[in-house]
């Protein structure tokens, strides 16, 4: 039980007054960063990184990782209140969180989101504490083919469960793939579909598309419906937190499943965004309340939030033990480690015990502090919905514009965001689902890259996706998920035929 002794050593480091103060500051900053759409954890951490150079490395990483936790918590706030995901991984939270807010249950949704985030993170940290070295070697087995299989599974577990006509789902997804293909093709190094516009060199950034499609699109819809912002009658007191807590243990299966999905996706490292989508998709499929998903089902908030936070936390493990970042924010933190003179990799755990265990202890404490901070603020956040729409709408617009600008410091992106807003409005009016489109923009180029890397390695043979147990298992799981409803139908028919 050397780990436990090390961990307590770590707690004594993390509990120094200066480090606790740093923790609070980090969480506060992180929540603000998470709330502002577009700013994002990676940018936030990158901007604040130089501030930490004068601190001892342990305090510095505590501050930065707390900004990261804060951003993970904060991303849920605007998703639930305004249907604007502050972070990519909170897109799936909007599907049920926003309908809940519209029904006046914003407080419940927020409390559920924050609590399940905490549960997810806690699960991941416990895993890191106990099985870090084991898990690190698991991550090494993931080459391009395995990565593609994971993305494939994420798509499959999400596709086919939407209630919209399948052709509309496919159409929306194909638009997403097309948008994801724009920009530099990372395999050949050629520009694709930019038509000579230098603004398009970067392709369509996922964040800008999401801010436009969801945020601006939603404002347009609300305007059409007569400027009424439903959900103004939200209950505003802390009791709502306790009431929500009473209901949460009933969803322990969903939570546990989401924790496992999250940890797995964080380590592989596919990241928090596919984790949240996959977890939402699977929860929708297996839950007995599955039909209520999308209409304000609390389980639809718990599943993605738990998975996203578990993945976000678990993503730090491959960074520390292998030096490969599991998320963009982890990539920036990695740069920070190097600047502080710490070499992430297999030796970090043995050579820098104080640092590593201080960080792990701060993961426990930082998430606890984060939970306290955001939960006490639930009434305040929920109260925002009482502000009349005519005041809040321009504020949201400004917030969206700042967010879109801050992604690449480019005014072209703000225009693009408005265009996406109109597109989002039209798609919604025609009942095209936005979720498959968003999923394809986020994972499209990553999946394509992994697919082509695999084929390069196998010299064009598709057999590479079934070449070992790991990759075949994931691929078969994906195929089962894709044809689940058909399999179910066939099974019922067989049974009736037998009877």
């Amino acid at each position, binding site marked *: 039980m050397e780990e436990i002794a090390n961990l307590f050593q770590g707690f004594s480091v993390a509990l120094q007054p200066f480090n606790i103060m740093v923790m609070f500051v980090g969480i506060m900053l992180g929540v603000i960063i998470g709330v502002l759409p577009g700013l994002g954890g990676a940018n936030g951490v990158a901007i604040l990184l130089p501030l930490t150079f004068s601190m001892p490395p342990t305090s510095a990483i505590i501050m930065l990782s707390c900004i990261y936790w804060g951003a993970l918590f904060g991303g849920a706030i605007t998703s639930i209140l305004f249907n604007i995901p502050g972070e990519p991984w909170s897109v799936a939270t909007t599907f049920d969180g926003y309908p809940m807010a519209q029904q006046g249950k914003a407080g419940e949704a927020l409390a559920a989101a924050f609590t399940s985030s905490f549960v997810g993170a806690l699960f991941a940290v416990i895993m890191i504490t106990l099985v870090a070295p084991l898990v690190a070697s698991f991550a090494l087995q993931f*080459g391009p083919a395995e990565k593609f299989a994971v993305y494939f599974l994420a798509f499959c577990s999400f596709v086919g469960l939407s209630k919209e006509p399948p052709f509309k789902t496919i159409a929306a997804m194909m638009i997403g793939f097309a948008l994801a293909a724009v920009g530099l093709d990372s395999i050949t190094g050629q520009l694709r579909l930019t038509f000579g516009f230098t603004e398009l060199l970067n392709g369509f950034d996922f964040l800008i598309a999401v801010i436009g499609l969801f945020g601006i699109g939603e404002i347009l819809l609300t305007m059409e419906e007569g400027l009424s912002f439903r959900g103004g009658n939200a209950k505003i007191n802390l009791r709502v937190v306790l009431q929500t807590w009473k209901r949460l243990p009933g969803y322990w299966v969903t939570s546990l499943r989401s924790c496992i999905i999250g940890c797995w996706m964080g380590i592989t490292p596919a990241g928090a965004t596919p984790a949240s989508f996959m977890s939402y998709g699977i929860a929708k499929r297996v839950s007995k309340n599955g039909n209520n998903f999308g209409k304000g089902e609390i389980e639809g908030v718990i599943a993605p939030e738990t998975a996203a936070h578990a993945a976000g936390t678990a993503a730090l493990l491959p960074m520390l033990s292998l030096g490969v970042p599991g998320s963009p924010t982890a990539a920036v933190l990695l740069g920070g480690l190097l600047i502080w003179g710490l070499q992430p990799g297999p030796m970090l755990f043995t050579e820098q015990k104080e640092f590593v265990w201080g960080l792990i202890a701060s993961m426990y404490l930082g998430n606890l502090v984060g939970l306290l901070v955001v939960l006490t603020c639930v009434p305040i956040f929920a109260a925002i919905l009482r502000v009349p729409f005519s005041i809040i709408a321009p504020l949201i617009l400004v917030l969206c514009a700042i967010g879109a600008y801050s992604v690449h410091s480019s005014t072209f992106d703000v225009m693009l965001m408005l265009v996406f807003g109109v597109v989002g409005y039209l798609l919604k009016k025609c009942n095209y689902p936005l979720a498959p489109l968003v999923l394809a923009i986020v994972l499209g180029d990553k999946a394509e*890259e992994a697919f082509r890397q695999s084929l390069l390695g196998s010299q064009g043979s598709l057999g590479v996706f079934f070449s070992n147990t790991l990759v075949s298992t994931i691929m078969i799981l994906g195929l089962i998920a894709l044809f689940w409803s058909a399999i179910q139908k066939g099974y019922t028919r067989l049974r009736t035929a037998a009877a």
Partner: protein
Amino acid sequence: MRRSVLCVGLTAIAALCASGIAASAAWEPVRPVEFIVPAGTGGGADQMARTIQGIVTKHNLMKQPMVVINKSGGAGGEGFLDLKTSPGNPHKIIITLSNLFTTPLATGIPFSWKDLTPVAMLALDEFVLWVNAEKPYNNVKDYVDAVKKAPAGSIKMGGTGSKQEDQIITVAIEKAVGTKFTYIPYKGGGEVAVQLVGNHIDSSVNNPIEAVAQWRGGKLRPLCVFDSKPMAYDEQVVNGKGWKDIPTCKSQGLDMEYLMLRGVFMSPKATKDQVEYYIDLFKKVRATPEWQDFMKSGAFNTTFLTGDDYAKWVEVEQKRHEVLMKEAGFLATGN
């Protein structure tokens, strides 16, 4: 009205005083300086830029803040075009990697280093040939023999980006050995190193800083360095071996040298004073212990060049890249 006149007067006096104090440097930034990184967050150029930013902040080397901005679109083309289109703006500088040459050549983005004003070469990044430590290749000869024996295309070389420095080196090795690799591009150097540890690729040409952790962990083995002389760092890294003990590739019969520029450029039409200011700034940065630690951790080649020497070096490299990329068939159509 009178108050505003007074204000203007005071500001003018203050400005005069300020310029008097800074008599040594005739020009000084009056706004925050944007330090553009034509690559993503977390990569080699980004780390260097953010280290510089941290050093500048910690030692108060500038009166105005320095802000690092990533413009990675189109293999860095976004960042270069941003500088090209803001001539005479002395508050924008850019850190370059080899994509200064490779991006315009491979993508046809309308840009050349001559559009910018050279400031200084900060360092050169080394490239090392790495293999998995479990493999029986103990030196370049073992490796080359194995590569020659294997059917063409069956040996997988991983690297960062497509038609960039890693792939250029790969093509050069192919030529020297007389075989074909399958080159698999990844997004970042750290990922390449981990893929090599996981045996998903057979070798890589990672920069020292990207693979050192795995070397120390006993997972990777360096075979040779693509430089004219061994690296200058003799501290032990692992098992009594240090960077200095890695032989040059040329001495091992693999005739290829490649170093990557880590240099700084300014917007077009910068004045001499402005360039002098930044040269002076980077000289101060280089003198700090933090910079020296950073150089050591990444086993950088610490050559420092400014002015004509720097421009000449870049000119030669540009020509060399044109040749190398033409031979490899990496030029964009229409170039």
